[in-house]
């Protein structure tokens, strides 16, 4: 199910975003950049990884549009770009929303069904319920 409602988002871009988010190191880098821009050296510090390895991760993040680098030619500080994350979040929200709405309607129906169910089922003992079911 779920045929409707999200033709507008760029699949390729979301692909890149989710691929970039797949890695815990890259998520940690993004979380770090959320508190302000940082150089490659600063970003590498908390990890037991070479700056070269960190640079590879940064390239993936950059290609996904999740980060950019500043003008300072020496430091080349990286900073977080919020738009792709917001877009990914929007997509997730839509898929979730479809099911929330669908199941919300099912909640209402079930409430109604419970009201009209036979009073017998109001006894909550498991054995009683099982017995009740067999009689159906």
């Amino acid at each position: 199910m779920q045929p409707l409602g999200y033709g507008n988002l760029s699949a390729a871009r979301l692909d890149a975003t989710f691929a970039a988010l797949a890695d815990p190191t890259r998520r940690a880098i993004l979380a770090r950049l959320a508190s302000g821009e940082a150089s490659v050296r600063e970003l590498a510090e908390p990890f037991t990884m070479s700056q070269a390895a960190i640079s590879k991760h940064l390239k993936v993040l950059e290609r996904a549009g999740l980060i950019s680098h500043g003008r300072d030619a020496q430091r080349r500080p990286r900073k977080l770009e919020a738009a792709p994350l917001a877009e990914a979040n929007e997509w997730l929200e839509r898929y979730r929303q479809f099911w929330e709405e669908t199941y919300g309607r099912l909640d209402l129906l079930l409430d109604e069904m419970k009201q009209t169910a036979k009073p017998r089922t109001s006894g909550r003992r498991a054995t009683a319920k099982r017995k009740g079911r067999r009689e159906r």
Partner: protein
Amino acid sequence: MTTTKAGGALQITTPSDREVRITRGFDAPRQLVWDAYTRPELLKRWLGAMPGWSWAVCEMDVRPGGRYRWVWSGPEGAELALGGEYKEVVPIERLVTTEKWDQAWYPGEAVGTVELTERNGRTTLVTTLRYESKAARDVVLQSPATEGMGAGFNVLDALLASIATA
């Protein structure tokens, strides 16, 4: 991003690269949930009841090997239709169906498994949709995934939370 309704939080995961799984609790015994899934007059009340759309055909022969056919009419003559076969029917526990859309918005046929468990009068409904290929699944998710989608929602939730508190 987690919404708590009367029934419980909705969870969406991708257990394998061909599947999407949707889990949700309901504040009702599973017999009622089962009925809502398998009786056309009840199913029509909640499934696909999108604004602007109405049911045109709802035929279902709920037994192993039986078929179903669902058609909705939408704005300006638009139509959405799907059908398939009931592969497994284990009353109040498990329903396995194939699913193919006339409009073929994803390649091939999907297999949907609905599993119901009950505890203290509450039902947990687990729906697993398995697609023909990863590519088909990814069309559905509109997110060509890679491994990353695996943790999907949780990853993004956690990341957004950490960014919000940073």
